């Protein structure tokens, strides 16, 4: 198992390294002169030169890459050109919205989807199964931002229960903050729940056919006990994989959903930075998001081994 962990950790570090190289290449080398992109076509020569100096663009590329990575490791992400404050503090401020939003969405979808998936599998080919699968088929087809617009139309415009967008801020109280995140979290959770319910159902069904379930039933275990104690536990592996993958999609999803609800989160910051051509902010946020995805995939692999003792011996 130790060898597996070391090997996996090595791959994790290499992937992060390659990701950072690609981002650096795409956002700093490929555009030619990032300073002229940031300042636009009409920029004065001396302004350009000053910005190049400030961004360290006169240094050779490897040195710039090295100082970027070193900065990240020390929590120094450079300075935002538009906001004129350190990117680090900008990101931290925005994360106080995006992290709770992502967590809320993933918890909602997990608590909704896993029981529904198991319930559908337990009632295989009956009306409950067909209707749950029907709804999940529909959930897969609904774009989350359209669902968000529908929620706003119904709950904000028609009923007036929630505001149509914006964030009350945590300083106005936990309840108010949570209320502003409710509709966004629901719209992020729906498509995820649809996928998760399907995967859970398939995984449980597959395990229900296995010999050990028959043995458990022969031993006198009720169908329900065999289902929860054996089939569901074994079905967790694919479910965890999908959960891990979903977290990455969720991070991307927040870019759209935060824009639908005008939430000042990381996704909206990234989007605004593109329109303001603030490449320093874009580079660091993209790196942060990519690193999060890579880290989640790494953790999912480790969790596998913990959930499934069989993998422990094989690895």
């Amino acid at each position, binding site marked *: 198992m130790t060898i597996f962990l070391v090997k996996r950790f090595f*791959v994790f570090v*290499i*992937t992060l390294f*390659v*990701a950072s190289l690609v*981002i650096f290449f*795409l*956002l700093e080398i*490929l*555009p030619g002169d990032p300073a002229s*992109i940031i300042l636009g076509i009409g920029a004065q020569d001396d302004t350009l030169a000053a910005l190049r100096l400030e961004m360290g663009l006169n240094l050779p590329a490897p040195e710039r890459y090295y100082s970027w990575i070193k900065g990240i490791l020390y929590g120094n992400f450079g300075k935002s050109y538009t906001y004129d404050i350190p990117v680090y503090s900008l990101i931290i401020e925005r994360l106080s919205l995006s992290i709770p939003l992502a967590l809320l969405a993933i918890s909602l979808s997990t608590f909704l989807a896993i029981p529904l998936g198991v319930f559908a599998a337990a009632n*295989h080919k009956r009306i409950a199964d067909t209707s749950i699968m029907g709804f999940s*088929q*529909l959930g*897969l*087809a*609904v*774009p989350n*931002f*359209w669902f968000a*617009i*529908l929620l*706003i*139309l119904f709950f904000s*415009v028609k009923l007036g229960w929630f505001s*149509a967008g914006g964030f009350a801020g945590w300083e106005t109280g936990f309840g108010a903050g949570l209320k502003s995140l409710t509709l966004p979290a629901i719209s992020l959770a729906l498509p995820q729940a649809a996928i998760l319910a*399907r995967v859970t159902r*398939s995984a449980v*069904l*597959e395990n229900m056919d296995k010999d050990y379930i028959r043995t458990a039933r022969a031993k006198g275990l009720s169908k329900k006990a065999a289902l929860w104690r054996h089939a569901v536990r074994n079905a967790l592996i694919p479910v965890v994989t999908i959960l891990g*993958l979903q977290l*990455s*999609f969720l*991070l*991307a999803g927040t*870019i*759209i959903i935060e*824009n*639908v609800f005008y939430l000042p989160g990381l996704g909206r910051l*990234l*989007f605004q*930075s*593109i329109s303001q*051509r603030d*490449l320093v902010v*874009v580079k660091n946020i*993209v790196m942060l*998001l*990519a690193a999060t*995805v*890579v880290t989640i*995939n790494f953790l999912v692999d480790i969790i596998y081994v913990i959930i499934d003792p069989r993998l422990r011996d094989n690895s």
Partner: protein
Amino acid sequence: MNYSILKNLWKQSLNNRSFLLGIVLSLIMILTGLISIFWTPFPVEIFDISHKLEGPSAKHWLGTDHFGRDMTSMLMAGAWNSMLVSLFAISLGAGIGIPLGVFAAGKSGWVEELVMRFNDFAFAFPALLTAVMISAIYGPGIINSVIAIGIFNIPVFARISRGSALVIYKLEFILAARISGKNEFQIAFEHILPNILSVLIIQSTIQFALGILAEAGLSYLGLGTQPPQPSWGKMLSEAQTMMFIAPQMAILPGIAIVLTVLGLNLLGDGLRDILDPRLRDKN
């Protein structure tokens, strides 16, 4: 493939509800898109402010938007744009992903490891993130969407074709083909590909649906299809600003997206049942 197999497939297709509903919905959308190239009830680039925000009528079947453009025409042209983006993106993803996957399965060892690590890596960049990076440098546009969605599809196709090809490579007829002197390329092209084709077709249908969703998301953000070209995502983002005055504008493009994606997903499910009966009860 002989006649009786085809007849059997045809019979199964007629009995498969997913497939039938899926193919009807998909064909309606594809036809609508195709017709829009030659004809739409009204031109989509021309504003007619005096007729803005009208309800459905004999002249404007689905009403008009805030610029007085005909909603039916906008939806039709939007169908074509989003299908075109998705189609090109899938071709890009499949064109690179499938050879990579088959190659990895055939070679094994470090080549396989390298391809699989590249896959893990590419998964770290959801289509939206790639599109964001491209737009940050080159500005938004329809080509961005194709590249971004396409790149995201590479690992999807590489993974599935490697998985399916690995099974075929172990079969005896591959060994026979090797002994008869065929090279790796011939084996991959003549023996592996035809045998994993059904899996790839099913996957393409699903990816096509996901591509439509991704295109809608990108154009909603303004990173994809650019005006005056209509797109469903763009229509939704415009509708959002008019939500208190004209909520109906936000409904129709969404329904168009849902029907298209639903149709393709059902078609994919149906095809899987028909082409790969082992999976029928599991999914």
